[in-house]
């Protein structure tokens, strides 16, 4: 899941982007690797490893779970939580990041909190969230929100701070007011950072999901895996893992696509 342990800088995003246009040869190699992995897995499962289901068994289980509606409903429940947390997180992170980057006062006031909470893994907030918010949807979404917010806010802030001073000067000498500079220079110039921050945020949100669903959930991929664990139901755990991986990958690719469309103007060195 390297796609989810996101990228820190636009230059790295650029490297990832170069990978997207990779030639057919690389794709063939990818395919070979996947098939080889499946073969090894099958061998391990048939030859020895206790209780390990074969890929076919997992596929069969996935079929069942899809047929009886469990998997779609779980996936939907998980996606709803993640997207809600992620949207709220970035929706708040972008303006706060802009404030911190643009106004020294806002930075001075907010930075201690942002920097401090960044050092606390969002999962460590779970006990507190349960005590304060009970065991409903709120604490789950809150933890995911926090994870997304903290990773997005920092990169937005960094993006604004790093806007090339000569570009701001170029706008100023053409007669631009502070408001115009903000809207026409700072926002577009920091878009690459914001989008990278959103990808990091989405990765963080998705990464927090399973743990968040340990808080007395009634549905969701994390909850289902937790249940399966009680019954030594390895197949279902595998189905859950693969579903989390595939959905995470899809969302990441979607954001990557948006990023590529929106920041096509960047010089790639």
């Amino acid at each position, binding site marked *: 899941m390297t796609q989810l342990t996101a990228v820190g800088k636009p230059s790295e995003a650029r490297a990832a982007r170069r990978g997207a246009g990779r030639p057919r040869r690389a794709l063939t190699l990818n395919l070979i690797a996947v098939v080889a992995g499946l073969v090894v897995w099958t061998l391990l499962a048939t030859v020895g490893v206790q209780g390990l289901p074969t890929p076919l068994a997992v596929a069969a289980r996935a079929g069942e779970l899809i047929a009886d509606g469990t998997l779609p409903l779980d996936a939907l429940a998980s996606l709803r939580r993640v997207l809600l947390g992620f949207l709220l997180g970035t929706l708040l992170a972008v303006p706060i990041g802009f404030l911190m980057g643009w106004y020294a006062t806002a930075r001075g006031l907010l930075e201690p909190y942002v920097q401090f909470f960044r050092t606390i893994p969002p999962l460590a907030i779970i006990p507190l969230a349960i005590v304060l918010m009970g065991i409903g949807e709120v604490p789950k979404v809150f933890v995911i929100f926090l994870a997304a917010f903290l990773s997005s806010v920092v990169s937005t802030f960094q993006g604004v701070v790093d806007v090339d001073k000569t570009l701001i000067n*170029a*706008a100023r000498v053409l007669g631009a007011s502070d408001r115009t500079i903000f809207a*026409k*220079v700072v926002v577009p110039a920091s878009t690459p950072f914001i989008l990278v921050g959103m990808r990091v945020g989405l990765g963080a949100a998705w990464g927090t999901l399973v743990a968040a669903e340990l808080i007395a959930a009634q549905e969701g991929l994390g909850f289902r895996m937790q249940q399966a664990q009680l019954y030594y139901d390895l197949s279902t755990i595998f189905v859950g893992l693969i579903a989390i991986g595939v959905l995470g990958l899809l969302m990441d690719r979607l954001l990557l696509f948006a990023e590529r469309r929106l920041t*096509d*103007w*960047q010089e790639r060195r």
Partner: protein
Amino acid sequence: MNTKISFRDVVKTYPMKDGVFTALDHVSLDIADREFVTVVGPSGCGKSTLMSMAAGLVEPGAGEVLVDGRPVTGPGPERGVIFQQYALFPWLTVRKNVEFGLKLMDLPAEERRRRAEHAIELVGLSDFADALPKTLSGGMKQRCAIARAYAVNPQVLLMDEPFGALDALTRVQLQDQLLDTWSKEQRTVMFITHDVDEAVYLARRVVVMAARPGRIQQVIDVDLPYPRTEEMRLSPEFGRLRNEVWHAVYHQPPAVPAA
């Protein structure tokens, strides 16, 4: 003639690990209305810093900078700047870059398009009007930056090595264009260059600066009539002036130690 830009006893220092670095040491210079002044000097002598003060982007540490007799308090569209680093907006096409300043002027859309078109044509970028900066060569980026400054038609043009990245032919063309519009539109131009030939060809006065500390070494009058022509470049008088400027730039006496 009235004084347009006036530097009075300007000092600029930057704090360093060990003491202060004096970028400009008591620089005084008056540029007349509608005058064309070029500034030459070794790298790091404070040319860009001096110009940034007239642009309102850098404040003098001591002394004052006046434009039209009033202290400069910030930048303004009546003083156009062409930056040494081009400073194009990378997310905008050539045309949109050129229109950036025009959009801030409340012009009718038609007039805006016409002026952008004209400026782009002047620098020979018409075929690339819809290209993004990342697809342009260094010289083309520079021409786009020139067009962006020309388009708003400022009274004062502050140009920091604007033709530095251009090939010889384009450079000569743009020099002649610049002189042409300058004499028509009656602008005041402060033009920084490394090229002694260019400094003499364009200017009524060449300001030669020296480094460490940054200061004005000599101001050389160019008594050649306008319009300047290509033949003048070959005249003995031009050669003499070029030698004089060359000498002033490259055979500078060592810095005077501060008393």
